[in-house]
């Protein structure tokens, strides 16, 4: 099907990578022609990033690499260090994930973009590169922390293009960005790849992002390449069960099969937010918000980073004092201090985005879950309460997990521990800040199902904060759209996501990459 490429930019022949006895990449063969865009999909641990790093021989010394890696026809494996250094960035460059950490924090971004040009003697100017990625020229003098996530990613792209490579490898280039910024960054990348006739190898766990950007798609599973073909065909007719699972895991807005929340009768209000205003110094983060969450209702609060949704959630939880307005929980105003506040907090529990950082790495599961019980001095047998909560979060049997440390668990299991820590206090409202954003596609579905089951069995209401409209479609009863501190639109999921009335909601929906 793929035409025989005479002069590929990149050719992997039977690439196999071992760490000790562990085989992380298993007999992968790939070719990429100039101007071709190839998406490499897979979950965490599938070996896709290892493939990316092996192209420029950036793997740690403990890795054992077999097979051939031909970059422009030359085997990277057999190059001398000098040749390899000359090839790095000049023939192939990488847009790394997490530009915050992949840029040197104490050097100006302009210097960092110029560094490979000076090193490889490439003519050109930093200003031209910044123009190409649509960044204001004065940003060259900025330090990474002074830029937004999208701007940093643009800097990474400008840097990757600095030496005019024939191949760009993009490793999860938009993972930490919200939908609107993600769409902007992807547009810039697509345009530059087309203009400069580059080969693009883009790595992501998000099939919809790859579908948006790449003509061809390859899927990796447990180190092996399980499927390769034209993007449309692979997604429409997946031949490997893992590809099918990946495509099914991403919700399609408007598809009833992806709408998992069952319709509920209009509930009694549990939490009411009335004309809430929160100021940070002179900036108004939350600007006159009205929001109601019913008993057992799941409300999705959607918006871009910086829209004020996290501040709103913190204020609802009593972690921040409102500048004006009121938060009413179960008919009474939320107390601002003392024992009453503590009692209120027991009823409203928080689930954070990244379970790996939410859990103390030195606390066993038992202690992590029991902490709330100890803080609130809840009587009863600690171990049996913890066991019940852990099993509610579907870690069964609980005694297998109680003595584990977080790093011994998978991402999905860690998130279940965080949820168990909330459940043990028998809360009535769960505030979940991007609860599935850091999880793999397959695990994501399980956590969504768990949240819905908790609502069904315990009548637990949730406020889900997310920039992922697909998640809102999957799980929520109602959606509130937040923009610049204001709720610009709210209503039932069908109404807001299928017939949006506000321009901003429409813009958000347009930005969602479609499979």
């Amino acid at each position, binding site marked *: 099907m793929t035409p025989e490429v005479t002069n590929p930019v990149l050719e992997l022949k039977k690439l196999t990578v071992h760490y000790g006895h562990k085989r992380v990449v298993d007999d992968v063969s790939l070719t990429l022609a100039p101007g071709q865009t190839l998406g490499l999909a897979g979950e965490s641990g599938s070996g896709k990033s290892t493939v990316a*790093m092996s192209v*420029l021989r*950036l793997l740690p010394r403990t890795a054992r690499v077999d097979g051939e890696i031909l970059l422009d026809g030359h085997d990277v494996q057999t190059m001398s260090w000098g040749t*390899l*250094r*000359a*090839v*790095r*960035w*000049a023939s192939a*460059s*990488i847009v*790394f994930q*997490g530009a915050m*950490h*992949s*840029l*040197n*924090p*104490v*050097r100006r971004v302009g210097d960092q973009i110029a*560094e*490979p040009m000076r*090193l*490889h003697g490439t003519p050109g100017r930093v200003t031209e590169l910044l123009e190409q990625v649509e960044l204001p020229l004065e940003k060259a003098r900025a*330090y990474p*922390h*002074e830029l937004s996530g999208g701007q940093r990613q643009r800097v990474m792209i400008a*840097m990757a293009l600095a030496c005019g490579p024939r191949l760009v490898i993009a490793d999860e280039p938009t993972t930490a960005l919200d939908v609107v910024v993600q769409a902007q960054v992807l547009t810039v990348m697509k345009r530059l790849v087309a203009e400069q006739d580059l080969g693009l190898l883009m790595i992501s766990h998000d099939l919809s992002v790859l579908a948006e950007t790449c003509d061809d798609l390859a899927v990796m599973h447990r180190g092996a390449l399980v499927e390769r073909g034209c993007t449309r065909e692979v997604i429409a007719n997946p031949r490997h069960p893992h590809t099918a699972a990946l495509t099914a895991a991403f919700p399609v807005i408007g598809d009833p099969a992806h709408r998992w929340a069952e319709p509920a009768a209009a509930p009694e209000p549990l939490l009411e937010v009335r004309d809430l205003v929160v100021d940070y110094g002179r900036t108004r983060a939350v600007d006159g918000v009205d929001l109601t969450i019913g008993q057992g209702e799941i409300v999705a609060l959607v918006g871009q980073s910086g829209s004020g949704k996290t501040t709103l959630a913190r204020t609802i939880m009593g972690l921040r004092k409102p500048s004006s307005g009121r938060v009413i929980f179960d008919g009474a105003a939320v107390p601002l201090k003392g024992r009453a506040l503590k009692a209120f907090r027991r009823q409203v529990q928080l689930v954070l985005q990244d379970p790996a950082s939410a859990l103390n790495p030195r606390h066993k599961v038992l202690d992590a879950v029991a902490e709330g019980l100890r803080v609130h001095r809840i009587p009863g047998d600690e171990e049996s309460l913890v066991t019940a909560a852990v099993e509610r979060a579907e870690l069964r049997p609980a005694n297998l997990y109680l003595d584990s440390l977080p790093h011994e668990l998978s991402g999905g299991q860690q998130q279940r521990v965080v949820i168990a820590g909330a459940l043990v206090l028998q809360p009535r409202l769960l505030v979940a800040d991007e609860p599935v954003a850091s999880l793999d596609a397959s695990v994501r579905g399980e956590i969504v199902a768990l949240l819905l089951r908790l609502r069904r069995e315990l009548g637990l209401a949730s406020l889900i904060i997310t920039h992922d409209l697909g998640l809102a479609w999957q799980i929520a009863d109602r959606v509130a759209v937040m923009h610049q501190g204001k709720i610009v639109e709210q209503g039932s999921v069908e109404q807001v996501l299928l017939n949006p009335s506000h321009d901003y909601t429409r813009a958000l929906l347009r930005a969602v990459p479609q499979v």
Partner: protein
Amino acid sequence: MRLAGRLGGAAVSLVMVAVLGFFLFRVVPGDPVVSMTRGRPTTAAMQAELRAQFGLDRPLHEQFWSYFTSLLRGDLGTSFTFRRPVAEVIAERLGPTLLLVGTATVIAVGLGLWLGVRAAWRRDSAFDRATTGVSLTLWAVPTFWLGMLLMMVTGDLFPSRGMRDTDTAPDFVSQALDVGHHLVLPSITLVAVVCAEYVLVMRSSLLEEMHAPYLVTARAKGLRDDLVRRRHAVPNAVLPAITLVFLRFGLVVAGAITTETVFSWPGLGLLFYDALTGPDYFLLQGLLVVTAGAVVVMNLLADLLHGVLDPRVKVV
């Protein structure tokens, strides 16, 4: 605003030092007049006269007030033992101390940071093991013992007492050579003892940066290993070490009591030792104010410099 805050904080610390300096030596047991006149027959009248002369007969709050106001004028009182103004005595000893401890600190910082970087970059190599092992051993060794050992081992190669010989020609070159000659043993002792601190701080701080993703970026760009280290890793890793270095520069003024005593180096450290054996309250008080003040000022400088070196810290 932040700068004003830092300056204010430093000013408060300095006042605290002054207050502490006064009361600390008032609660120490012993009568200064008795110790002043030890070994000499004195009458009660003479003692009373001495008391009046040093203002010791006045109520505590009056003593404090006159101490504090004269401190603001730079007057640290008069030493019992030297019978001269404390400020003058300290100023005289400041030069030799700055020379000895300053030289040793600069060498120790340079050597320590360099060794620390090399050790971390080749972690668990023979070089790393040797560096960490030797510097830790030297750190654990008592200073006076090391000093005396050096004296014995080097024999007559280097002078081991004082700062200059009495019979040296008075011209500048011979004087400088003589002082340099005297400086060798005490500074080697000091460097050996304090170097480990810099080695270990630099090493652990660089080890933390070794897995930073921006180093992978730098390598992917095609930078040589030593450029990755010099341009990217070290500028980040050196930041925590800066604070330590400046705190240490503050302590330079305090001198090195044991080293100066062992080698009879006429600096502040030896002066401290002499003042304690007195005890000479006004001198101790003055030394405390001067040395603690130096630490406060250097700490302030470290804060400010950190802001210059690390763009993420906004000082001004």
